[in-house]
């Protein structure tokens, strides 16, 4: 850490970096259509700034909180900014992941696509800066301003290709849900300020709320932040918006923006409300678990690669909230160490998901650029044409499937470890039901593996399903740098959990009052044993070493004792000679078992060919029940509301006068 202490004031640095992002964005307007300038100059600068932010955040993680009051904002309510461990943690996430995405984006923009590059540059950097400000904001107003600026800039980024109706629809849905969520958050702040008129978080922290008020604030926050994060009934915008956006933006939204929602929730639930009621946690956990299952099941039946990833993001958010819910439960029963364990799992998963999901989204971006195809049904065999992207994507896939020795597994492992303690909860029912939730988490993780096999296998393996895929080109240099950066993040996070947990321990301590630091077995730097080595341990480094040795020995052994002769020939396929690419398993086919098993989850429509069709067609569409059960009824209710008020304005002046007359009389009666 001494290396990093060159920054005397992390807050000042972080704010300057946010401002510098703004400046970089504005510089984009100087030559909005000059892709070379915007891409090769401005975006790399943004990436360097992001790295700087990550460094600053690292140095702030261990340090004391710092705060500053800016001379802008409302008169009694200037902008308060503050960096404490929690903000620093999320700044680290934004910086580290943002750097990879920025450098990738530098190579991504091509002339003549949608919104001018300069404008995109502005929006992109405003987006980055607003995310940084969200996690630094220390009062309700500045938080909301940064929060909505973030929503707005990302909305414009999502709709940068606004000539397509479905992109517009996606953007609309996104901003609508975001806005409704924002109002809920705002109301939560309204409760938290407790009539003092002081919206600074310091004041909210000091307030004491009655049970009902606190619960109201908590659930409003859950609603508001859940809407942004994509928690179950409010997830509907996510699979629309993320695919519609340009890939770097999808990566940024999925990888980073969703985490700001998690940040907001943690801030309100733990820091401001102190999360002392255990059943809140049960509710959060239930929502999280159903979100995770829902997300992964839907993800498995998608046939658009970006939608698939978007649903997978929903799943991961669900897992995150499971961790948070569990932490609240433990915290509510005052089991601090266990709360710290669950919270560490959640925070770790934030980092993990941010790195691997942005990596995967960027890979889809590369594929999209190379092939102009998003539909899984038209891809295939790209590992031959795009080996860089394919192998880097494989890292993301393994991480996303939650497999050792990469980062996805670490957080999952921590989460399951904390679930193992749930039978100790001093409450009937809960201590019996909780372990079942663990099974749900495992089911989710296993399904995630299914999804990832489908994702990787259909895109990169097999034979190309279309002729034009033969012309696909691998990602450019800048794009590769971005991908490698993120992939190495995944690997680092996967291999050095002890160090990473040590780093984020201050954030955990801030949230639940206790870190894992003391409980962490420090017998060996390579061994992760959160409670004690007897209890459970995991060492990814050792893991990797053993596998590597076994791999090498196996490889060399076979060569040494036998031979390495290889012949090439046509595929065997049980002796079937007329193999063509259309005979491969399709994305739909791969999803078929899931559709069968989880049939009640879907609203499915199938068009089966009849035996006499000259051109037989098979089509299946899978839709979300919630859309029909929840959103359309809401839309209908709104429609009903409109129909209800419409007679008020029916054109006849006599009737209008009658309204005034009746109003007057009614009020006069009322006064009497």
């Amino acid at each position, binding site marked *: 850490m001494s290396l990093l202490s060159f920054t005397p004031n992390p807050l000042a640095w972080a704010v300057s970096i946010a401002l510098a992002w703004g400046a970089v964005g504005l510089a984009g307007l100087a030559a909005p259509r000059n892709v070379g300038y915007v891409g090769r100059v401005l975006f790399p600068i943004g990436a360097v700034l992001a790295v700087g932010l990550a460094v600053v955040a690292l140095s702030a993680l261990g340090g004391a909180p710092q705060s500053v009051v800016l001379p802008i904002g409302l008169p009694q309510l200037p902008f308060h900014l503050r960096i404490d461990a929690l903000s620093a943690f999320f700044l680290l996430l934004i910086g580290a992941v943002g750097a990879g995405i920025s450098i990738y984006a530098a190579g991504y923009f091509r002339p003549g696509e949608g919104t001018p590059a300069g404008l995109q540059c502005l929006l992109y950097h405003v987006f980055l800066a607003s995310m940084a400000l969200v996690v630094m904001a220390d009062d309700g107003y500045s938080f909301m301003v940064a929060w909505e600026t973030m929503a707005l800039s990302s909305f414009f980024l999502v709709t940068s290709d606004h000539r397509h109706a479905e992109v517009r629809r996606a953007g609309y849905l996104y901003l609508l849900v975001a806005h409704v969520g924002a109002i809920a958050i705002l109301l939560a702040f309204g409760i938290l300020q407790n009539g003092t008129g002081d919206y600074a978080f310091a004041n909210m922290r000091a307030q004491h709320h009655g049970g009902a008020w606190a619960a109201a604030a908590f659930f409003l926050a859950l609603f508001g932040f859940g809407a942004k994060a994509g928690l179950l009934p409010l997830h509907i915008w996510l699979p629309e918006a993320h695919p519609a956006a340009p890939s770097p933006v999808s990566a940024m939204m999925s990888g980073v923006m969703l985490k700001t929602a998690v940040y907001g929730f943690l801030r309100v639930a733990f820091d401001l409300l102190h999360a002392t009621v255990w059943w809140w946690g049960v509710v959060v956990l239930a929502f999280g678990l159903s979100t995770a299952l829902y997300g992964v099941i839907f993800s498995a039946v998608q046939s658009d690669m970006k939608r698939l990833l978007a649903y997978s993001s929903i799943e991961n958010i669900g897992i995150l909230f499971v961790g948070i819910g569990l932490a609240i439960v433990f915290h509510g029963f005052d089991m601090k160490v266990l709360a710290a364990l669950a919270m560490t799992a959640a925070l770790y998963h934030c980092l993990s998901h941010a790195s691997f999901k942005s990596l995967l989204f960027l890979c889809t971006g590369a594929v999209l650029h190379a092939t102009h195809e998003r539909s899984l049904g038209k891809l295939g065999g790209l590992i031959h044409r795009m080996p860089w992207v394919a192998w880097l994507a494989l890292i993301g896939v393994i991480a996303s*499937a939650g497999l050792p020795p990469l980062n996805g597994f670490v957080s999952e492992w921590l989460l399951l470890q904390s679930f193992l303690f749930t039978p100790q909860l001093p409450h009937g029912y809960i201590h019996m039901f909780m372990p079942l939730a663990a099974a749900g988490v495992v089911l989710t993780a296993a399904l995630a593996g299914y999804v990832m096999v489908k994702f990787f296998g259909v895109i990169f393996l*097999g*034979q190309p399903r279309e002729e034009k895929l033969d012309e696909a080109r691998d990602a450019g240099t800048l794009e590769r740098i971005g991908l490698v950066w993120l992939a190495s993040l995944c690997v680092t996070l996967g291999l050095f959990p002890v160090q990473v947990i040590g780093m984020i321990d201050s954030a955990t301590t801030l949230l639940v009052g206790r870190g894992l630091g003391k409980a962490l077995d420090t017998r060996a730097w390579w061994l992760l044993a959160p409670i004690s080595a007897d209890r459970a341990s995991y060492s990814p480094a050792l893991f990797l070493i053993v596998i590597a040795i076994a791999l090498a020995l196996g490889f060399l052994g076979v060569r040494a004792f036998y031979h390495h002769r290889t012949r090439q020939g046509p*595929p065997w396929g049980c002796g079937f000679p007329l193999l063509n690419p259309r005979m491969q398993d399709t994305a739909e086919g791969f999803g078929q078992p899931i559709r069968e098993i989880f049939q009640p989850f879907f609203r499915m429509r199938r068009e089966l060919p009849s035996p006499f069709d000259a051109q037989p067609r098979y089509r299946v569409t899978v839709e979300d029940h919630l859309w029909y059960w929840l959103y359309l009824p809401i839309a209908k209710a709104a429609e009903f509301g409109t129909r209800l008020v419409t007679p008020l304005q029916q054109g006849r002046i006599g009737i209008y006068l009658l309204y005034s007359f009746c109003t007057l009389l009614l009020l006069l009666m009322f006064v009497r």
Partner: protein
Amino acid sequence: MNPAALTLQLLELVMALLLAPLLMGWVNQCRAWTQNRKAPPITQPFRLLAKLFEKDVVLAYNASSLFRFVPYMLFACMALVCVIVPVLSTDLPFSPAADVIALVGIFALARLFIALAGMDVGTAFGGLGSRREMLIGFLAEPALLMVFFTASLISRSTALPTIVESLAHREFVIYPSLAFAGVAFILVSLAENARIPVDNPTTHLELTMIHEAMILEYSGRHLALIEWAAALKLYAYFSLGFGLFFPWGIPQGTGVGNVAMALPALLLKLAAGGFLLALIETLSAKMRVFRAPEFLGMAFLLAVIGMLVHMLLEVPA
């Protein structure tokens, strides 16, 4: 990390590499006997491996580098599992690298790779096999975890050495929960190891095959490695089962005497277990792929009941 332990660790690995094909052979023999067939020699799997290693590899034109990488990866994963699961002693230097949860992770990692390999050449069968394999996988994992949960609730640990120690070296107690968990574990093992009634390791019938469908395109040394890895997997499941449910005979120390005592116990257990497997395979029929969820759902249910029973009966109030 003392040299004795390291030696023991190596010994355990070598033993696994040797015993795994033998176990395969033993199961096949038992099956032949129970089915009134003439049994092949117990070393038949070794001969098969040797033959495959000798043969040339025939690669499809469009096989990718991933395809050639997977057999080694698979083999390495299974080797790692065998390093971790205690069979001769609980004092293994590599054992802390992974607990039971991580073990599930390794199996899943191997599964992911083989499923990807199955899709690589782009035949109709490969993809089909991969998808079925993943289907079985995601159904089996929660059940397996519940089994581990029960076991680790008893021993308050997920580290395998600790579980084994707590069951084998504390005073003897009957845990009814373990009975349920054990049955569940057997069901999961059958599914995970491509055994009847979920899969049939000996068939190449399109409609039913799962594991074989994925490895159709492999040949020569690649296929040998995969077969060996499959044998290792079976062996690993056996030793896991013994560690969780019949840990008696696994010593704590690393002394020669301890190991000498542990080896016969292991062989005995393997022989019994192999026979049991053959018996199950003989007595049951392969079921439709879509019955697999019911089958594994049953496993899950049993594991959960086991856990609840543990909470009800075995936790001192």
